């Protein structure tokens, strides 16, 4: 499965949103209804799914779907 599909699945599962709402520039907090606890859990789920550690300062920068997809693609490449 592509990185983007995995990210979208995690967002649907954790935030209970419809897949159509998850546009690539959607912001987790403003557009998808996440609060700070959801954001923490999102980062944790990304770590688990992609088997990486995401430093807190990196996690804080991931505020949109596309940022997360780009970051995770880069971290898991090669």
């Amino acid at each position: 499965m592509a990185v983007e599909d995995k990210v979208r699945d995690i967002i649907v599962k954790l935030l209970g949103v419809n897949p159509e709402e998850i546009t690539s520039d959607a912001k987790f907090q403003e557009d998808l209804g996440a609060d700070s606890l959801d954001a923490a859990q999102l980062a944790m789920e990304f770590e688990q799914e992609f088997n990486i550690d995401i430093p807190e300062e990196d996690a804080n920068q991931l505020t949109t779907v596309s940022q997360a997809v780009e970051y995770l693609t880069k971290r898991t490449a090669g």
Partner: protein
Amino acid sequence: MKNGRRVVITGLGVLAPNGIGVDRFWDGLVNGRSATGTVTAFKTDGMNSTVDAEIKDFDPTQWLSVKDVRRTDRFVHLAVAAAMMAVQNAGLDMNAEDPNRVGVLIGSGIGGIQTICVEHARMIEQGPRRISPFLIPMLIINMASGQVSIMLNAKGPNFSIATACATASHSIGEATGLIAGGEADVMVAGGSEAALNALGFGGFCAMKALSTRNDAPEKASRPFDLGRDGFVMGEGAGIVILEEYGHAKKRGAPMQAEIVGYGATADAYHMTAPSPCGEGGARCMLTALQSAGMNPEDIGYINAHGTSTPLNDKLETEAIKAVFGERAYTVPVSSTKSMVGHLLGAAGAVEIIAGVKTIQTGVIHPTINYETPDPECDLDYVPNTAREAKVDTVLSNSLGFGGHNATLIIKRV
């Protein structure tokens, strides 16, 4: 209550092992149906008891968003569902209320123990960085009151009581006091419990508190019967809407019963065993009668704590005799737990709801599985079959580990 403003019950909400909603709950009780059975929720290998009372057909997404279901423990799901049912039953429109005058007081005996177990296992297997950020908000007992206040926009007094099996009765009693004292006009009050997992159940097994009648699970809860051998652990929630009398009258709310008496005492004796002769429970009933300005002759029915443990039923019987004298032998006494098991922190609420239904319908539900009289339990326990009787006043007892006692008295309005 003798002191303060009058407080009436205007809404009822219940989820119990014998049914979701007041109608199914009450129908099960008056028909003497047992809701206890063999555990299906978890594995009981190595446990001495395999009997519990589960709610099997509950879908929390009927009451909460998918996201909120994931972020809250089952005891909060049950509390929210019961609270929304009670609000609906009371015809309470929060848009028409001053939110500052509406409070929530929902307790739980144990709280989110399943969440604790899941996250503890994750920490052991995957390390502390995998602990969910929702662990703490999911497990804390006060989140039932918190979540309900968020959903109702209820901004008045809001907290939780944890007194084990007396939790819900204390919650309703203290919420009544808040209204009587003028601190709120409406309170959403009661208790919720969802501790049927291996750790919660195994803990009670270790105490040898649970019935081991594993070959006849529907007969395991048998309060006051000579063959009783422990309680049956259940789950559920009971919530009532309490309102100041004038407030309820003004909005034409259904006044289902009035809370006229409340007693709260401590045994100050032992962690789990009741005090000798049920002294603490007796003092609690007396305190409630005094707060109601009533005599034992005024009570038409006692909904007992009646757990089906050897000690509780004997000592509660002694306590009733100590308070009621000769009247103890003529007042009907029955145990809701004989049918739905012991709902721990929710028990007192579903039992006061049974009391309200008794007043409304003129039917006293039975104590089922009563087969062999115990010489030490010699009162009228309404054995096995419901009884028609005009009841105007109900006294309900709840006695919790820690020596916490709570008694509520309700009366026809």
